[in-house]
């Protein structure tokens, strides 16, 4: 891994995180996804901006991350998951996504451009929800989160194949999908 010395400099890391966040917030705002109308438009399937932004980020990000990984420059961090955690939590997340109309990243951007419902409703609610989860965690962890675990690895590691056999066809599929959206004027 490169820059290991840098990774251990905690103060500098906070500054790097802040700087990356500023760029992230600016890009989210420019793309339009910090707006309730755009997020709900995506979930109502009338505006495909959210999917376009996410898939463009995935294609560019994936090629770069796997290129750097093949040179030993970065390490991957696939998250663990399970039916009890990822699927049940994901269903709750999706309901919140549609009812609130922002997600934890875009809500911060929405507050930034003046959305007061994002500040007083969204951020407050997310903090309460996160607090409820922390309170319920011991019970949930024992009874729900551990049910039906997935391998906490990447798809190519699981299939034991060269990652580029997944990366390249997936990028082509995504580009074709995006071209299809544009072709149909979505």
């Amino acid at each position, binding site marked *: 891994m490169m820059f290991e010395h840098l990774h251990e400099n905690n103060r500098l890391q906070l500054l790097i995180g802040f700087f990356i966040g500023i760029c992230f917030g600016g890009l989210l705002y420019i793309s339009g996804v910090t707006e309730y109308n755009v997020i709900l438009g995506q979930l109502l399937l009338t505006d495909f901006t959210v999917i376009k932004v996410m898939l463009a980020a995935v294609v560019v990000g994936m090629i770069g991350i796997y290129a750097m990984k093949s040179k030993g420059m970065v390490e991957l961090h696939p998250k663990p998951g399970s039916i009890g955690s990822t699927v049940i939590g994901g269903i709750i997340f999706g309901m919140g996504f549609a009812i609130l109309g922002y997600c934890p990243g875009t809500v911060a951007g929405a507050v930034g451009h003046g959305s007061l419902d994002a500040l007083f409703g969204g*951020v407050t609610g997310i903090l309460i929800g996160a607090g409820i989860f922390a309170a319920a965690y011991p019970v949930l962890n024992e009874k729900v989160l551990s049910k039906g675990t997935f391998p906490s690895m990447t798809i190519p590691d699981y299939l034991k194949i060269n990652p580029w056999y997944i990366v390249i066809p997936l990028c082509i599929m995504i580009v074709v999908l995006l071209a299809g959206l544009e072709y149909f004027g979505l």
Partner: protein
Amino acid sequence: MDVTPYIAGAGIGILSWIAFLLSNKPLGCSTAYTRTSGMIEHIFRGKKTDEKPYYQKFAPIVDWEWMLVAGVFLGAFAVSVILGGFSLEWVPTLFGDTFGYDTGLRLVVALGGGILMGLGSRWAGGCTSGHGISGTLQLAISSWIAVIVFFVSGIVTAFLLYGVLW
């Protein structure tokens, strides 16, 4: 064809390279809310807060991801001011045109949605950034499942809410 979403998306992809390279971290947002929630709880309950197992996993401190979310706020604020898009708004137009421009109603709905969002993102172990972008671009199994569930559940809820099918 509007290329803005693709350029912004590609920029976010490049930011994820920088985050992996310089910080050995994927872009993510939802743990910042857990930590903030812990900080607020700490004011009222002191050391008892730190004993909670979840706050031992995610200590109530300002970390890299917390600074990232603070940066998202500042970045969106700065760019919206520079481009002249900043404006104070209580009720988004799509919501207002459908359910009325009632600030109280919008706040209650947003608060309820926010609670589900805070609960669900930590329950699922990530959000639209951590699972939806960073996890999927690493080809993580759990993140591809998460993002599909996020959108299926979100689309079903939005259709029910806006009465698309009835």
